[in-house]
């Protein structure tokens, strides 16, 4: 049977080529994700063990608050601690270190945008020990007015040693002389982040640190274990400060970056999974059609004595070979893809040392296993169908035209869909009592099951829906149009299976579009409701924490401004968990920003007290008049009365307090926002011009009005949406390959019919038109199913998130656009088959054996 299998495979190699491609793309994404993240993972490992070279123990503030926000504002370590530490036995050398966010100005004096991570400012200690930074060129900064940059950033901005670099930290830009270029271990920067390095006194000055430090790095006397030193140091440290071994710091940092990498990997794998899932539909359809076309051949094998198991085995062996070949190709494709990702990573500011891409054995095995298993599972049903071909079929004439009952389809499909919906509902709305599966995974599995269920049922309504979609075709496109319509209806199972692949892609596209529209609509609503300021001054980008208070002071003197409200931002611990704290100017804030006051008022907030978000107050079980326990990094645990309970969106914090209370309890005093109301009669434009006259000196702040705010959120949402679209494009592409494949196979089946049409006078153009519009019907059918499912999914997800205030918005125009795009995609998918059909040799097509 082996020879027959191989011969059969070679005989159909053209038909299988597109199938192979579908698997190759999916497997390629799996392999590419692994190769890229493995490579980056080991780069990070090397990087962070390099950063702690020469350091044995680090003293740092205890970071209690683990937030999604990515950074926190720990307190500084007083300079006295450094003196104490130096006196401890076993400490060979100790230096303070400082870090903050900085922004560089480019050669044109504009804030230099980074494509990815922010730029950090740091101190470069005056020590001869190896450290995190290595000098690549020039000298280390040793005096005020000097700076060193990482080589990558300097190259990117075109700075050379000796140039003057302008740096924004809190206030206006300050000029520094570039005295040296630094590297980070082997790499030219740290995972994409740039560095501006100062000597310690300069860093203390520019970061407003007084004589304090962010961390203290210690080298142990030879023979003293870091762990021993940690034990000796810990008792003498103030509260909120801890000693840890440098090794565990490196591990933590690498782990944090790798966690991000893990998310990225999961993200890629999810889309690879979707692509493969779509691929299974294509593979199954291809094998089903090929088995149908080979009915006589298979029957001949049976007639000649092959058992039905041998026939099944033959088809499955074919599938296995196809799986191995396409997984192998997929692996190669994946390595290529990882190269592309590496290039993209460098584009986004990262620097990969000359490390070869890491292709681990695990990656190879996973890729091969995924490809082969997906192919085999997809071929299982067609293989069983092949086995059911009776030997007598060898003598019978071709395609059976009897319409088999679709009852089994309904009987199987409805419960499957119901099960999928149930999984989704549980994932979305039910609090799970166990943790071995996450709600999101459950929702994803539910969606997959619903897709299968709908794909099983869909042949039942293929004929009516395809008929409706194609209804205008006969009139608009004459005969080719009506033939296209008829052809799309003649094999409902085939049309449905082909459309199902596209359905999945379109459902996810619609879901993403609906979620984006809902978020966008919700944000707009929130801005409309709460945004009462004419203008808001805030920081550019996401690097820093705020800007100098001198801006608000200067703004207050402008005659164009009626009133303003400044806000600050910080973190503290409230009850069991971390809390974001916003400080607001109590006399004006409520005029400029609408929040719902549920209870109490802001009148007494100016004295030491807090106002809590309803949800937080409920969790804590406190009301107005009660006292809550808040722990600040600077002042420790405080008891503060609750004077108001409020609710509202547009504020990230759950604790509001007065600027005065904030100043008492936080050491960093930077404004996060200044909300501005203009005098009556001053237009937004002239108000903006007035504000600019102050802020021009501060390139790190921006002025936004309500429209700008909306546009900003919108562009963020759109960025995420387009990223998701790009990833989904993959599965849509595979689905289109499926349409191309099905059409090609159908054309082989219809060779004689097309030949006849050509013989009686159908032009090549008309043949192409016929195929093209059949393709359009199939893809629009898939799109209709997909969009309907997408709306259903979107509605369910928004419902599940409605507690967070999310409103359901149906982006009708965009969905219709997607439908239209699917039609156009159908035209594209038909190009090749239509061309082949129009080139069929008429004579061969009509001559009979």
């Amino acid at each position: 049977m082996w020879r027959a299998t191989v011969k059969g495979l070679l005989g159909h190699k053209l038909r299988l080529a597109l199938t192979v491609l579908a698997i190759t793309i999916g497997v390629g994404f799996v392999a590419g994700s692994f190769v890229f993240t493995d490579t980056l993972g080991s780069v990070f490992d090397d990087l962070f063990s390099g950063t702690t070279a020469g350091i044995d123990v680090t003293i740092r503030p205890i970071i209690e608050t683990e937030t999604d926000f990515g950074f926190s504002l720990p307190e500084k370590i007083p300079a006295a601690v450094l003196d104490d530490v130096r006196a401890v036995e076993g400490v060979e050398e100790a230096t303070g270190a400082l870090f903050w966010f900085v922004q560089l100005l480019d050669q044109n004096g504009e804030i230099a945008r980074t494509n990815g991570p922010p730029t950090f400012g740091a101190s470069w200690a005056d020590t001869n020990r190896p450290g995190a930074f290595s000098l690549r060129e020039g000298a280390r900064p040793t005096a005020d007015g000097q700076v060193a940059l990482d080589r990558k950033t300097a190259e990117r901005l075109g700075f050379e040693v000796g140039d003057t670099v302008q740096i924004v930290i809190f206030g206006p830009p300050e000029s520094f002389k570039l005295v040296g270029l630094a590297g980070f271990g082997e790499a030219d920067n740290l995972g994409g982040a740039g560095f501006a390095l100062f000597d310690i006194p300069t860093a203390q000055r520019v970061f407003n640190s007084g004589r304090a430090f962010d961390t203290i790095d210690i080298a142990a006397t030879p023979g003293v274990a870091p762990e021993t030193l940690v034990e000796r140091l810990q008792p003498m440290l103030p509260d909120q400060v801890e000693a840890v071994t440098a090794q565990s710091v490196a591990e933590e940092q690498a782990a944090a970056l790798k966690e991000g990498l893990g998310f990225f990997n999961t993200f890629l794998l999810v889309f690879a999974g979707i692509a493969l899932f779509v691929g299974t539909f294509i593979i199954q359809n291809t094998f089903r059609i090929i088995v149908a076309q080979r009915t006589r051949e298979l029957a001949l094998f049976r007639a000649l004595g092959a058992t039905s198991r041998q026939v099944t085995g033959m088809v499955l062996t074919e599938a296995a070979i196809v799986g191995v070949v396409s997984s192998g190709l997929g692996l190669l494709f994946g390595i290529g893809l990882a190269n592309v990702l590496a290039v993209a990573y460098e584009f986004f500011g990262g620097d990969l040392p000359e490390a070869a891409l890491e292709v681990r054995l695990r990656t190879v095995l996973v890729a091969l296993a995924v490809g082969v298993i997906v192919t085999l599972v997809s071929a299982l049903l067609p293989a069983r169908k092949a086995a059911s071909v009776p030997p007598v079929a060898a003598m019978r004439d071709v395609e059976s035209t009897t319409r088999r009952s679709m009852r089994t389809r309904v009987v199987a499909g409805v419960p499957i869909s119901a099960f999928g919906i149930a999984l989704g509902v549980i994932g979305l709305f039910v609090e799970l009592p166990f943790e071995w599966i996450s709600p999101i995974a459950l929702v994803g599995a539910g969606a997959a099951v619903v897709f299968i269920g709908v794909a099983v049922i869909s042949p039942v309504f293929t004929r009516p829906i395809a008929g409706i979609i194609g209804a205008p075709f006969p009139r608009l496109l004459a005969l080719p149009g009506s033939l296209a319509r008829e052809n799309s209806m003649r094999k409902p199972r085939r049309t449905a299976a082909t459309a199902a692949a596209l359905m999945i892609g379109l459902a996810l596209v619609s879901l993403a579009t609906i979620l984006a529209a809902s978020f966008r609509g919700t944000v707009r609503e929130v801005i409309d409701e709460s945004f009462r300021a004419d203008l808001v001054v805030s920081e550019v980008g996401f690097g820093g924490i705020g800007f100098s208070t001198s801006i608000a002071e200067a703004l207050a003197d402008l005659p164009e401004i009626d009133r303003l409200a400044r806000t600050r931002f910080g973190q503290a611990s409230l009850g069991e968990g971390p809390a974001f704290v916003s400080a607001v100017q109590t006399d004006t804030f409520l005029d400029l920003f609408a929040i719902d006051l549920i209870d109490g008022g802001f009148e007494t907030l100016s004295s030491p007290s807090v106002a809590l978000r309803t949800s937080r107050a409920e969790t804590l079980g406190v009301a107005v008049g009660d006292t809550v326990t808040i722990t600040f990094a600077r002042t420790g645990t405080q008891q503060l009365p609750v004077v108001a309970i409020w609710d509202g969106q547009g504020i990230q914090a759950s604790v509001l307090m007065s600027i005065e209370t904030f100043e008492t309890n936080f050491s960093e005093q930077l404004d996060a926002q200044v909300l501005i109301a203009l005098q009556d009669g001053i237009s937004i434009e002239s108000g903006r011009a007035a504000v600019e006259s102050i802020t021009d000196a501060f390139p790190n702040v921006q002025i936004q009005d309500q429209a700008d705010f909306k546009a900003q959120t919108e562009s963020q949402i759109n960025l995420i949406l387009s990223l998701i679209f790009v990833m989904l494009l993959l599965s849509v592409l595979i689905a289109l390959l499926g349409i191309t494949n099905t059409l090609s196979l159908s054309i082989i089946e219809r060779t004689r019919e097309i030949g006849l049409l050509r013989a009686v006078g159908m032009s090549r153009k008309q043949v192409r038109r016929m195929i093209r519009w059949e393709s359009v019907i199939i893809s629009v059918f898939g799109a209709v199913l997909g969009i309907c499912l997408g709306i259903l999914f979107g509605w369910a997800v928004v419902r599940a998130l409605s507690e967070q205030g999310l409103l359901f918005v149906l982006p009708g125009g965009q969905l219709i656009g997607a439908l239209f795009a699917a039609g156009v995609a159908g035209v594209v998918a038909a190009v090749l088959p239509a061309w082949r059909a129009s080139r069929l040799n008429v004579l061969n097509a009509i001559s009979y054996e």
Partner: protein
Amino acid sequence: MTRTEIAARAAGAVKVYGEGDAQVRALNGIDVEFGSREFTAIMGPSGSGKSTLLHCLAGLDSLTDGHVYLGDTDLGSLDDDELTRLRRDQVGFVFQAYNLVPTLNALENITLPMAIAGRKPDQTWVDEIIDTIGIRDRLQHRPTELSGGEQQRVAAARALASRPDIIFADEPSGNLDSTSGAELLGFMKEAVQQLGQTIVMVTHDPAAAGYADRVVFLADGVVVGEMLEPTRERILDHIKLLEA
């Protein structure tokens, strides 16, 4: 019966398949004419080139050398689009099998060439044909719901519906039982005699050829004989003579 005009003609037509040792000269410089309003049968053993001649006359295949004319048109001078239009407007076809588009019903199949051309069929003419071949009660049926004989009669009706200059039939009764075959051939004869059509039919069945006005005998790619007002018996005799 006098010959008024020439509907189709081959002049020094040569068709060579393959190359080198595998070379086959299907048509070997053949000269032959087919008159209008005439029912001509082409006969000959397998490999005599009769199907090739038909395909070349109908614009389905091109010659290696020489010329074929439909009316005054030299088919060799036409490109694919012009040939397609010629087949659509001036030629009718009846093949041995697979004559009908399975997704169209009988009536749609009959009017197919006009639908392709985007023209309205001549309703009176179509009605006349439908009544002549007697399939009026089967018009809404799809090909799979028709018997073999009915399918071939629908095919013949289609060939006639657009009033082509000439109809080419390739073993039209080859797949039919004798009764259905006789019905079909009788109808074709009627189409020539009463409706004034021109038919050229390839067949190897002397009985089928007996319905024709004239039989042309082919062997090895050239005309080897011809017979007017043939009957089955005369044809059989002639074939014996040729084989002798």
